[in-house]
């Protein structure tokens, strides 16, 4: 068990600044997810924690001790790699056993621990196989077993589910969550899949170009995105973002007018999630345009209308039917959240309230 503190850590590859001045504290027992688009420095950050990548400057502390110069093996971490990194010439048993063997655990204890761990991830029947004879999901579980067998104080997982098919991903996600609950080990988890992040995380750190743009619980990241990037990144389909201006307590853009309690200003972006809008026939609806597309997703229909240069999407009932190009009106659902952002900086306009404005 341990907390991890990253203090002003920085990573340069030659002249390229991959991670600038990152500060992050991961609490003991927490499941922290690093989420962000490809190339934003998630893997680099994780590898610096693991000690596989030298840090250019800054400090890393684990359980209050500075470990900058410690080799990976002395950091009491275990890592699950994106493509597993299993030892191809060893059987599943030997793979799981290897960390114990290296640490000089005696034979009897090793046999027992390997057996217990294999049972935990349901690999008992496959112990004598080699990695090449396993399916992707099974390999994944071997990698997991190898990581948990010696109960480290920190788990590092780099997109461990990205190679699996959608169904297995959901199953393994639940298994991971259960495992974390059971072992309670501090976990840093990298992904670019927001669903994975939302479901697994105690807290999510959203990264962009090496910087953390928001660090918060999944709930608050969803309900209070700190800036336009987070607002657009989290949620599927993503939040409607409409450029406009506030005048006289009303946000206006072509075809859009929302009452907001904000002082007048230009260059404002209004954000509202598709699930916060519903289809209406009211003539004075805040969003009015022409129907652009209908997409049935199964449990609902995504309705997109166009007005001026903007497209606005709403989640409607699955049985909704209408003609393309027909007039279409959206109104916010009761309790819907409207988010306002400053266009130039992208920051959330926090004059209204920390929780966003509820209609």
């Amino acid at each position, binding site marked *: 068990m341990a907390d991890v503190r990253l203090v002003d850590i920085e990573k340069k590859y030659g002249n390229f600044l991959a991670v600038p001045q990152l500060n992050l504290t991961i609490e003991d027992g927490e499941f922290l997810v690093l989420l962000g688009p490809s190339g934003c420095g998630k893997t680099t950050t994780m590898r610096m924690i693991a000690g596989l990548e030298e840090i250019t400057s800054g400090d890393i502390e684990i359980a209050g001790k500075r470990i900058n110069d410690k080799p990976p093996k002395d950091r009491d971490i275990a890592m699950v790699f994106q493509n597993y990194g299993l030892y191809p010439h060893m059987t599943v048993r030997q793979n799981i056993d290897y960390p114990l063997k290296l640490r000089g655990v005696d034979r009897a204890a090793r046999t027992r621990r390997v057996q217990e761990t294999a049972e935990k991830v349901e690999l008992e029947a496959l112990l004598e196989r080699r990695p*090449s004879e396993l399916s992707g999901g099974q390999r994944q579980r071997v990698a997991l077993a190898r990581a948990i067998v010696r109960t480290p104080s920190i788990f590092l997982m780099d997109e461990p589910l990205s190679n699996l098919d959608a169904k297995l991903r959901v199953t393994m996600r639940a298994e991971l969550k259960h495992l974390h609950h059971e072992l309670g080990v501090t976990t840093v988890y990298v992904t670019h899949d927001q669903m994975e992040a939302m479901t697994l995380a105690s807290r999510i750190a959203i990264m962009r170009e090496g910087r953390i743009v928001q660090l918060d619980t999944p709930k608050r990241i969803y309900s209070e995105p700190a800036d336009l990037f987070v607002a657009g990144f989290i949620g599927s389909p993503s939040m409607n973002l409409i450029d406009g201006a506030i005048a006289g307590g009303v946000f206006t853009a072509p075809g859009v007018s929302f009452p907001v309690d904000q002082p007048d200003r230009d260059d404002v972006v209004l954000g509202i999630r598709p699930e916060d809008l519903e289809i209406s026939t009211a003539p004075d609806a805040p969003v009015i345009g022409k129907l652009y597309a209908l997409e049935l997703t199964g449990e609902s229909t995504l309705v997109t209308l166009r007005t001026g240069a903007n497209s606005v999407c709403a989640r409607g009932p699955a049985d909704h039917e209408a003609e393309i190009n027909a007039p279409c009106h959206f109104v916010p659902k009761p309790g819907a959240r409207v988010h306002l952002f400053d266009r130039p900086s992208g920051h959330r306009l926090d004059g209204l309230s920390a929780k966003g404005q509820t209609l």
Partner: protein
Amino acid sequence: MLPYWLLIPAFVIVLATTIYPLAYSFVTSFREWDLTKQRRPDGFVGFDNYLHAASESGFQNSLWVTTIFVVTSVALTLVIAMSLALLLRRKGRMHTFTRIVLILPFAMSPALIGVSYRFMFNPEFGVLAKGLGAVFPALEGMPWLADPNLAMAILVLTDVWHWAPYMTFMCLGGLASIPRETEEAARIDGASYLRIFFGIILPQMKGVLLVTAVLKTIFALKMFDQVVTLTGGGPGTSTETLAFFVFNVGFKWYDMGYASALAWILTAIMMLISIWYVRMLLSDRKMATA
């Protein structure tokens, strides 16, 4: 029918340049043929030529010399190639440069290598002989190529020098195909560098090293040029390898029947090694996919 007609020219060429000489030498190996006496092969003598080899000291000596040469040269080349590959694996500033320099020895003709090493180890004016003598006074005036053991050592040295670069590139290829994560996982699991090498890298290099070893063995068995230009088989018969001995029997003593038999013995040895290698490879594959 036409496709078969079109194959004929290629077939004729292969027949004339490969199959015919092979078959001819095979048949000759069962005949008596002293080129100083006859222009055509003489009568069949059954296995006499092969039996002769079993009791003839020249052949037995060459077999022994070849064994020593092959074993030391293959072992040294592999160890050096693997070490160099480990050193060159990380891409540094001199990356391209070192690789170009590295390939130079391999680009040189083996005969030329023999000649230049003979010069360099000449006790009177050889660069290496003089240089070594200057650093280690005990070695001053050492008759390098006149001593049977030293001559063999230098012969091995030329061959290792010639082949190590090529084998280094093979090892580099092998190393590049090892997933980086396996080493990193081992580092996190707590393995020392030595353990990572022996426990993680080497096992994954098994296939490549096997190919390298077999290729190098066959090349070493065939090694001929340097014997001619460096030692001439001497001093005495101390560096008379099988390939060189076959040449002597055939083109110095003109005993073509015996020479053919010896050549086929050499071929049989190489074939056995190849078969063993293919077996190893197949069994390895079975293990990986069963």
